[in-house]
């Protein structure tokens, strides 16, 4: 079975790893994730799709301590098997802050300003049994 992007409109799986697909405004250089067709900063619609950077710093974080509801959640929802996971905003220099799962769920191991990089993470399976890959940030 193959590994597939959770959604090809927001993330490509490349040989070098996952790449997030965002919007760059050609008028004011503002970035938004995921891709959209207008810029909320300057209101221009002259925008393009770009791969966002893969390295950044942690800006805000929390730890998801209970299983989210399914749907929409694709991961483990059985309370006896659920493992808490980190969620945070990672600031990608010159682009934006992106919300993401974090590979770390220990509050003593997370600190604003720490260096992070983008990785893929298995979240569930599609109807045909392929692994669905979403994105996460891991400490460098």
């Amino acid at each position, binding site marked *: 079975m193959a590994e597939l992007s*959770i*959604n090809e*409109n*927001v*993330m490509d799986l490349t040989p070098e790893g996952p790449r997030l697909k*965002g919007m760059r405004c050609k008028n004011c250089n*503002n*970035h*938004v*994730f*995921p891709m959209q067709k207008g810029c*909320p*900063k300057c209101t221009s619609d002259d925008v393009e799709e770009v791969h966002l950077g893969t390295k950044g710093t942690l*800006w*805000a*974080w*929390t*730890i*998801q*301590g*209970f299983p*989210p*509801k399914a*749907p*929409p*959640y*694709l*991961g483990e929802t059985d309370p006896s098997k659920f493992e808490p*996971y980190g*969620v*945070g*905003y990672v*600031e990608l220099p*010159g*682009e*934006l*802050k*992106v*919300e*993401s*799962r974090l590979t770390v769920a220990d*509050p003593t191991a997370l600190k*604003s300003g720490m260096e992070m990089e983008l990785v893929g993470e298995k*979240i*569930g399976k599609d109807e045909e049994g392929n692994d*669905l890959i*979403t*994105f996460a940030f891991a400490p460098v």
Partner: protein
Amino acid sequence: MSDDVAIVGIGMHPFGRHEGVSGMEQGAAAIRTACADANVKWADLEFAFGGSVAAGNPDSMVSQMGLTGLQFINVVNGCATGGSALISAYNTIKSGAFDLGLAIGFDKHERGAFRVNTGKSGERDWYGGSGMALTTQFFGMKINRYMEEYGITQDALARVSAKAFRNGSMNENAWRRQALSEKEVLQSAMLSYPLTQYMFCSPGEGGVALILARADKAHKYTKNPIFLKSAVVRSRRYGSFEVLAPSLALDYADGPTVDASQKAFEAAGVGPKDIDVAQLQDTESGAEIMHMAENGFCEHGEQEAMLANGDTEITGRLPVNTDGGCLANGEPVGASGLRQVYENVLQLRGDAGKRQVPNDPKVAYTHVYGAPGISGVTILST
């Protein structure tokens, strides 16, 4: 004075869980109480604005209230749904279109955290599917960062919750009426670090109705009208840090609360020091702390000392969430903003019983905040 607006009747269906009672029936019960309070009949009402997010189209309640042909408009506006119904009613009277009408909000949500489906048709919902799209995470992240920046402690978070449940224990319409100690709050399950179970409110059920009239006709209906001095809703600006945002700008801007608050004070011609009692959005205990500063009642970071001093207790210098807030009442989204106004009307009338703010309060403030980055403020006076 003829363009001023008065609240002349209030009604509430208790908040909580009501098996077998629909959200709309809870709304209808609130309307009947409000009509009795204002000595008016349903048939006297010229217009209504109704808000509900998850309990049906409010205007369909005319089939149980009475088919009188009144203008009935539904309002859905995220967490400011109830507040937006009130603002619409306020503006309708101010415009001169009608003299007497209703703002009604009710809701009934499933148990547990709000389920937010963010998928587009024909696409896999990557956002909720990946385990984001939870409002609880936003509140955890925002207060975690705020605590680091301004030196707020977990003890302060616990003080807010303990106050809410203490105030809720004096409110017969509240959902959670059992006082809890700060220790019990801190030791409950960690839901979204640094926030524990008893630091979060829960989606719930309930209904609130307010009858509004032209101020110069208010004494026809009640001996103690409460005047709505301003009512403002604002959406977010570029750079603000909001709930359910897959990405944020590098620039940082104040949230919609700051804008709504400033405009409401300006329109009412009063300032934060004039406020005798305030109901501030407390989706979780950290939100109340941040909203104290965002609404202009203190500087960022001063909340730690204010809470330790008891400044926001019913007997303090700025009582906050005297009815137990969202923490003790739960959050039926369509009704929540109207609950705050209901409580302030009781306080300004001197009818709040065991939880009455002393020294005859004259000016009262409400504030709602929520998805997708929206805030509503009202200022009431005697």
